[in-house]
């Protein structure tokens, strides 16, 4: 055959490929313009706040700019013994400048977060340093308060020197840099975060599992019964979904508490004695129950929409080929619903990992999750850089889970209906 190696030309004499690309470009621009508002919205409301969180979690420039002379003098100090006279004198002169600019309060707050106890000693120093004599600042400062003679306080100041630091990320995994610059674990009685991360993953996993075990039969029922009944039952699934989250959580508190409805019922039927009522609220059990109920629709709906597309004749075909009901289910039906399971599980897991209100209200002490701790740092300690660091770690964790899921199952295999 005559293999045509000549380029195909359009009627204008331009190569077809080029002409095609040009036509496509217009379409692409149109498509981009249609998506542009959404993209802008996402950038403004999503990406730039996250970027801001990222910079905030590593940014420590404020204090670096407040104590320039001190940090320069500290460069030569090794951190083992008390710093030399030069450091004390530079600190005092930096502090004097801050007092004149009336910004010393911010320094106090920042240092106090680094190591408790700075608040009162810096205030005392401010009062006493007006009557300091020239020279010999080291001795005079140490006389103001004995903490100034404690080398750990000066180490704390040195730790805040770098303008950018990952100290908050270390803190989020219960670690700290000691005086030699090594990363070590924090003291035993201050280790919280690793425990909370593990607990969060554990709770999210089990909530996903419970939702799956409960949601699968419900979705199957909804998908296979006649339309008029399934509509009615669908309302039962959706109505709680439309009720406020807070109302549902508060209702669980009333039902599950020790003197609550469920326990009263158990005592009535004689299952438990009156003074031995099980505790189902203000602990992990409360968290599990409430979160499973609240996240159930997120599992049922994707499963339902996938199951609806499975033709009943497939199951019948499997049975007619000699399969037992179980084999048919396992080999024919279940794999077909895998994409729905994937969608539902991913949705429930990601929501559960970041859940805040429900664990806050019903979790007590043993059922609170990492998001409650992030909120605590946002509201109480005002350590926003730390809250940002933890928030970012949560985001990265969730994205990692998404990526693993994509590698194992493939995100294109998710169907929401």
């Amino acid at each position, binding site marked *: 055959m005559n293999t045509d190696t000549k380029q195909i030309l359009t009627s204008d004499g331009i190569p077809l490929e080029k002409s095609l690309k040009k036509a496509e470009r217009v379409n692409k621009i149109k498509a981009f313009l249609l998506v542009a508002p959404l993209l802008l919205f996402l950038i403004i409301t999503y990406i730039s706040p996250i970027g801001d969180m990222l910079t905030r979690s590593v940014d420590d420039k404020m204090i670096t700019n407040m104590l320039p002379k001190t940090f320069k003098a500290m460069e030569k100090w090794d951190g083992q013994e008390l710093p030399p006279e030069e450091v004390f004198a530079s600190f005092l002169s930096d502090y004097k400048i801050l007092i004149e600019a*009336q*910004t*010393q*309060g*911010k320094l*106090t*707050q920042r240092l*106090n*977060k680094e*190591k*408790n*106890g*700075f*608040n*009162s000693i810096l205030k005392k120093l401010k009062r006493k340093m007006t009557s300091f004599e020239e020279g010999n600042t080291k001795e005079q400062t140490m006389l103001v308060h004995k903490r100034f003679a404690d080398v750990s306080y000066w180490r704390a100041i040195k730790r805040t020197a770098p303008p950018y630091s990952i100290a908050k990320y270390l803190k989020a995994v219960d670690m700290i840099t000691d005086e030699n610059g090594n990363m070590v674990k924090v003291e035993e*009685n*201050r*280790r*919280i975060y690793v*425990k*909370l991360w593990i*607990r969060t993953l554990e709770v999210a996993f089990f909530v996903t599992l419970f939702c799956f075990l409960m949601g699968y039969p419900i979705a199957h029922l909804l998908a296979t019964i006649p339309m008029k009944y399934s509509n009615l039952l669908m309302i039962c699934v959706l109505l709680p979904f439309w009720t406020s989250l807070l109302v549902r959580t508060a209702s669980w508190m009333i039902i599950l*508490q*020790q*003197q609550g409805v469920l326990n009263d019922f158990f005592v009535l039927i004689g299952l438990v004695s009156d003074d031995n009522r099980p*505790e189902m609220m*203000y602990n992990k059990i409360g968290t599990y129950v409430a979160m499973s109920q609240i996240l159930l629709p997120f599992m049922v709906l994707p499963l339902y929409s996938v199951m609806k597309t499975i033709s009943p004749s497939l199951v019948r075909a499997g049975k007619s080929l000699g399969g037992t009901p179980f084999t048919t289910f396992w080999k024919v039906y279940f794999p077909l619903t895998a994409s729905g399971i994937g969608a539902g599980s991913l949705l429930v897991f990601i929501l559960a990992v970041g859940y805040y209100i429900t664990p806050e209200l019903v979790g*007590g*002490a*043993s059922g*609170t999750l990492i998001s409650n*701790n992030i909120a*605590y740092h*946002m*509201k*109480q*300690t*005002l*350590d926003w850089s730390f809250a940002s660091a933890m928030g970012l770690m949560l985001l990265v964790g969730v994205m990692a889970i998404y990526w693993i899921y994509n590698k194992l199952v493939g995100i294109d295999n998710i169907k929401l209906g």
Partner: protein
Amino acid sequence: MKKISKLLLAISFVLSITSSAFAVTVVSWGGAYTNSQKLGYGDPAAKKLGIPVNWVDYSGGLSEITAQKEAGAITWDIIDVYAMDTINGCDEGLFVEFDFDKDFGPGSDGVKASDDFFAPMPSKCAVGNILYTWNYAYNTDKIGSKKPKTIKDFFNTKKFPGKRGIYKSALSNLEIALAADGIKPGKGGAKIYQALNTEKGVARAMNKIKALCEDPKGGCVFWSGGAKPPELLVSGEVVMSTGWNGRFFNAQMDGAPLAQVWDGQGLDYQYMVMVKGGPNVASGDAMKVLKEMMSTEGLAGSAKHIAYAPFRKSSLAVIKAGEPWYKDGKTNMLPEMPSAKANTKNYFLVDPLYWADNGTELGEKWEAMKAGLK
């Protein structure tokens, strides 16, 4: 007709926005307490000055106001805060520093402001509002034959089995733990804070709370909102609960079967601050409202609705002369207040400087302790 109604709607919308922009916003803790403030000194001040006052609820801490400042959109004028927040907020430059005697008028007896307020302010940005206390209460219907009388009884799960309600943070809990563990507060609780300034003292307090929470005959429920302790007690969820005395009092007045225990109470002051850059601060309206609310009559008025002691000595004198002072016209208020002689046999004064200094670290240890509870 349609056009006129649309116009009316637009006008009323504009009016509502503008008038609320001129209303001074006061932020407080909600529930019975805010109600007492509104009826006691908020509405009278608004009426007298002709400046509308708008009340907003919050749950404490400086996070919201810090967020507002960072966003450059401050909507709050006056906030009712904990003592340690006045210290921290003043340091951060969030609040206005007062020229005390100039900004706040003398008492009705002519005594200048700084002498009329019965304790010195913890920071230049604070004006004293009320004296309240952290005490505990129990449900008289569900407690049984023996009644708890001391702070030690709160931790005694053998004599009084059942769950206890305690505050979600370390504040006040460490002090009562030590008070019940043998460090008698006496008058002021100085020994307690001396112990808490040592590592051993803090560990001792934390272990006592941990023991209470892990005790099979005991157990803890953590509350954060002031309205929760009376609720927990009435529902029977806890057998005893710490809380703020005024909330217990109001619940009692509403018929709840509660009884308060004053032994080992933690007296604490509550302050008002004015936000730098608040919408009505520059015009001076916020200051006028604050001054009127913190006057002798204002502070005395709030005691008509809740059992918190006003900060001014002259207000206490007004109440004494006008007993029975409570809004029902039948109840004497002074004996219900934390400062009453019968209630102050064994008490500690919550130390805001201690908490301003150590709040962060103690908070971490406390959260670690809570996270480790079974």
